[in-house]
């Protein structure tokens, strides 16, 4: 039997470019554009906030003993954006503030480039740390994004990851 292959690849469209910059918070984006941490930090500014937690995930030059030259991130674009939206909403509940901003990159990244970033601001540091921690942990657990490592020796491999449905069964109930 012939398997018809649809002509569209809209599920891998760059959703971030359609979303544009919004004033509403929390803010999030899945994008091919390089991440500017200073811009993300400014999104969560507020005069009543004494703490800003800013976390970056960065491509490193070695993994399990193999020298890495680049990492290629592929996303299920539409779902990754929706799921990241759910994650930042949960983080806002965890931190007790809507001042949460998160971004995940797709495409090919070199060593040292940021693959994701999250910024949370709040009156005190504990909430800012907790909100940022929630975002990175949940991204790793369930965001539909995959990475292929390209090694210095010319080979490349999809990294083994986490089954998001198995992980969901173990996770505590998300705040509603």
């Amino acid at each position, binding site marked *: 039997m012939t*398997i018809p292959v649809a002509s569209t690849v809209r599920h891998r469209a760059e959703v971030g470019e359609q979303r544009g910059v919004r004033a509403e918070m929390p803010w999030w984006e899945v994008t091919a554009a390089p991440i500017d941490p200073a811009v993300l930090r400014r999104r969560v500014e507020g005069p009543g906030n004494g703490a800003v937690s800013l976390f970056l995930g960065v491509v490193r030059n070695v993994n399990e003993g193999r020298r890495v030259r680049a990492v290629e991130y592929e996303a299920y674009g539409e779902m990754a954006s929706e799921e990241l939206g759910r994650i930042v909403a949960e983080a806002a509940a965890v931190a007790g503030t809507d001042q949460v901003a998160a971004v995940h990159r797709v495409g090919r990244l070199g060593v040292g480039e940021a693959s994701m970033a999250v910024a949370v601001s709040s009156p005190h540091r504990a909430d800012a740390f907790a909100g940022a921690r929630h975002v990175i942990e949940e991204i790793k657990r369930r965001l539909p994004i995959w990475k292929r490592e390209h090694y210095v020796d010319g080979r490349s491999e999809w990294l083994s990851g986490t089954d998001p449905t198995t992980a969901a069964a173990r996770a505590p109930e998300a705040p509603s």
Partner: protein
Amino acid sequence: MSLLRGPPGRLKVTVLLFASYRELVGAESLTVSLPRSTTVGTLLAELRRRGGGWARLPTAPAVAVNRSYSRDATELADGDEVALIPPVAGG
């Protein structure tokens, strides 16, 4: 013309594949015609029966229906988007 509406008694779903699963199967998107009342689990079994790369997929891959993680028992509706989700590795 939309391919997403099946004849009476049948339903059509779009199956999406990503990353290692896309390379294993050699396709990133296809439409599948199924009897009404088909579940996610039945669809997975029908895909595995196609052989080749399909047969080498895990027996119980993670699945998202219309961009939410789903379970084998979920009943599919005409026009659903069913994504087979390899273990995720974002961050």
